[in-house]
């Protein structure tokens, strides 16, 4: 291949595409190389069974920066984000707690379980939103390096201090507590009802190799509520057409700006010469050249697989090896040809359309984690079942449904390794739990796809199948993400960058990592910045 690009982005996940789009927008000649024959990474819509479109990895979005959506004109490129809510969590006896969008309904639903908790929920959300408000400022900003004396880092630290001091002294103390606590303990400070506490704890473990009682899970909860849909902080949305619609829209914007995408092009190595990035060598032996190489792959894969050991400093290799990217979740994606019954719920109740969960105590959540610690998938798993296709007619023909089940915990490595039989057994565990609340659920299944961390790693490329490209613990957040000294998207060699969610601000379909990395690349190239400022909380 003779053609030389200005920049090559490895991996056509949504962050890679976003990064490429902003580089292309600034006039660079950009190529995205993707190992699969489809783009999107973990934000994909795939017809895995004829007539059914699956969001078979990520399934909802909230963190997607509205400012990027607007700036890249993604609506014109086919993206529509629709608000989605209505979660129901079942207790063992079939009673449930539901989430309603309407505040008065939500209050009454809480109140039927605990009047006090209904009141406390207002205080809880006010406090949580106060913390979210603080953290939201940093999503589309590059973390400061606290060890640096560069004016830019000092001014970024000062910005953080200023935002910090926007809170009252009491709230600063509360925020520091919150950031390091367990979600289980945090909820005890507000609520008395276990079903309410368990339901609210959901987001504190998703994607995380920690239990609800592990210190640090309160932050994971915050990570799930710091996004927004149209300014409604904490709200979640669906991408019409499945999560692939996001990737496709960004890809379309990229192409409009002159960028190119090459699929079926797995990268073997990043070519580095004289400590400068020179391009990539594909597995098929072809080499493509560029002075800018950006990896959308997770940090572990980037630094231990597609870079030569001699091209990276020893300490970085150690950091990459120690990087925590633990597979803790699986997915069971299901095609249904009818709407199952939920015997304890009134017929045609609106709640049947929402998400469903089936654990009613935090101890059950914690025990699911204990199983994982011992290298087993959870016997009584945590499932977030999202029936998004009810709201999105593009997933399947009328009367048919696509159901996404996100499951914790499921280890990347189990004794004897994953086999198709074990994978099936894991899927059965999930269907069994659902069937306890819906006896005929199984009868409507026309196809299902069971994905353990093994499949996620091998198909998507996420090490251990970790959905966030690395644990969201404080040792791997902000200026520590992915590693101290490498949080500003720059790799070890000149011209080599990272743009995946292994970098700040972390996992979730946010496009922020890709955009932040683009801003840094353009800064290094002394080109005008094309990345918009975030429009949080005007």
């Amino acid at each position, binding site marked *: 291949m003779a053609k030389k690009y200005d920049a090559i982005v490895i991996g056509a996940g949504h962050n890679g595409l976003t990064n490429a789009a902003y580089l292309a927008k600034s006039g660079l000649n950009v190529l995205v190389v993707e190992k699969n024959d489809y783009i999107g990474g973990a934000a994909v819509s795939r017809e895995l069974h004829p007539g059914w479109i699956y969001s078979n990895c990520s399934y909802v979005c909230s963190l997607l920066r509205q400012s990027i959506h607007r700036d890249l004109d993604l609506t014109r490129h086919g993206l529509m984000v629709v608000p989605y809510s209505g979660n129901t969590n079942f207790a063992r006896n*079939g009673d449930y707690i539901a989430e309603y969008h309407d505040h008065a309904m939500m209050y009454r639903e809480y109140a039927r379980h605990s009047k006090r908790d209904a009141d406390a929920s207002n205080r809880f959300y006010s406090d949580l939103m106060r913390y979210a408000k603080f953290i939201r400022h940093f999503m589309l900003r590059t973390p400061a390096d606290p060890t640096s004396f560069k004016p830019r880092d000092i001014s970024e630290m000062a910005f953080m201090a200023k935002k910090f001091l926007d809170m009252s002294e009491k709230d600063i103390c509360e925020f520091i507590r919150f950031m390091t606590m367990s979600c289980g303990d945090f909820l005890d400070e507000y609520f008395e009802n276990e079903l309410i506490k368990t339901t609210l704890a959901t987001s504190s473990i998703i994607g995380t190799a920690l239990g609800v009682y592990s210190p640090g899970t309160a932050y994971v909860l915050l990570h799930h509520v710091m996004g927004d849909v149209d300014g409604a902080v904490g709200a979640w949305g669906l991408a019409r057409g499945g999560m692939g619609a996001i990737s496709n829209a960004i890809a379309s914007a990229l192409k409009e700006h002159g960028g190119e995408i090459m699929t079926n092009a797995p990268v073997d190595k990043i070519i580095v010469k004289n400590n400068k990035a020179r391009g990539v060598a594909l597995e098929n032996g072809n080499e493509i050249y560029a002075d800018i190489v950006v990896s959308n792959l997770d940090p572990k894969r980037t630094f231990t697989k597609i870079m030569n050991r001699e091209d990276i400093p020893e300490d970085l290799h150690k950091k990459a090896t120690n990087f925590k990217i633990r597979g803790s979740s699986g997915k069971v994606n299901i095609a249904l040809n009818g709407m199952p019954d939920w015997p304890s719920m009134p017929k045609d109740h609106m709640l049947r359309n929402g998400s469903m969960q089936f654990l009613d105590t935090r101890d059950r959540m914690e025990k699911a984690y204990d199983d994982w610690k011992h290298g087993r998938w959870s016997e009584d798993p945590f499932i977030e079942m999202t029936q998004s296709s009810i709201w999105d007619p593009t997933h399947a023909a009328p009367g048919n449904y696509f159901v996404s089940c996100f499951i914790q915990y499921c280890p990347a490595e189990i004794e004897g390794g994953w086999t198709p039989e074990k994978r099936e057994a894991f899927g059965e565990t999930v269907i069994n739990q659902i069937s306890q609340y819906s006896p005929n659920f199984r009868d409507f299944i026309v196809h299902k796809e069971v994905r353990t961390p093994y499949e996620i790693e091998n198909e998507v490329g996420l090490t251990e199948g970790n959905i966030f490209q690395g644990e969201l613990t404080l040792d791997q957040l902000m200026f520590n993400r992915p590693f101290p000294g490498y949080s500003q998207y720059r790799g070890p060699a000149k011209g080599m960058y990272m743009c995946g969610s292994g970098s700040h601000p972390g996992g979730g379909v946010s496009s922020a990592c890709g955009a932040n990395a683009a801003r840094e690349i353009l800064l290094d190239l002394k080109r005008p910045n094309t990345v918009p400022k975030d429009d949080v909380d005007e």
Partner: protein
Amino acid sequence: MPLTIANLLKPEQIAHVPNGSLGSPFHERTSPLNFNQAWEEWNGFLAANYYRDEHLEYFSTRNTCGVLDVSPMNKYRFKGPDAEAMLNRMVTRDVTKHPVNTVQYNIWCTDAGRIIDDGTIFRLSQDEFMLTCAEPNMDWFQLAKVGFDHVDITDMSHELAALAIQGPTSCALLKAMGFKGIENAKPFDIVKFPYLDGEIMISRTGFTGDLGYELWIDPKNAIALWDDVFSTGKIFGVQPLGLESLEKARLEAGFLSPYVDFHPALHTMDKGNDHSPFEMALSWIVNFNKGHFTGRAALLKEKQAGKHRRLLKLDIEGNKAAESAILYRDAACQKQIGYVTSAMWSPVVKANIALGLVEGKYADGPIYAEVYHQKELRWIRKVCKCTKKTKPFWAPARAKQTPPADT
């Protein structure tokens, strides 16, 4: 513990949240009177915005007597030997000096001295209180209870139906209903009468600033009470009253409304968007002499600094309600000093009245309001001079007289 479908509750065994709000105990009577079925949700109940004619209803509180269904109010019972001490430490007034069978308007604040909510406390006996407030507060009460082992707090909102009877003929109406001696009840007194097969509690309280009473009764007798009020009340000009009229009456009286004039502190996210009692012109109920109460230290500091914002009663030039108006120090609107929280044209006072929150250092100087109003869809801006008032816009002598006149 094995799970089987057979163990699941049936839908009818689960107390699903009702779609839509509940009717109050008076709903059977109020619903037919509500011509346009104009309701809003209030603590899970349907509350009438207005019945037939909001303007007429409003005048009933000033001219005859209006009847407002206040059953949706949150009502909490505090009972036990620690009830007095617990409440005294929670609110800003001295509960230890609160006589039995009287009512006190009260507020409770955070540690930082910011208002959480306001409400009225009914002292029913030495160790039993009823607290009523517009917003739910159980969460805070339970926090305030920590360390007081001998007090039970129960939400009794559904145990009592309540009617507010407000206006110049209200006392005459109650006398005609047979509540002997009610005329001797002084403002904030509580009197109990045997009524129907039980008891009725009458307090000389209300949210209109006029002569008025509130009647508290077992919900099973609600309909009978309503019928009694309206049949006896015909000759006293009795009118059902909706929330829109109440909103007018309370503003004329200078009373505060949560989420309108102040933002409850526990639900405020941004520093400085909540309010202290001094800002809300409530220094008269902050008792620094009663000993410790929650927020005392912070409030004392604020009082001594004296720099706080101030909620002012404003009489605004012209006759266009200054809703959402920004307040300035100068007619050229150069220096913004505050904003209007509530505003209306007062039909009885014939004045364009408002409550406005102004930065402390500008509170004594000139104030101008930038008012926007619409004429046949066309928006018009004007700058109006504001005059500060120290007394409530509406405070008739009868509201405080005992015994009050019949009209």
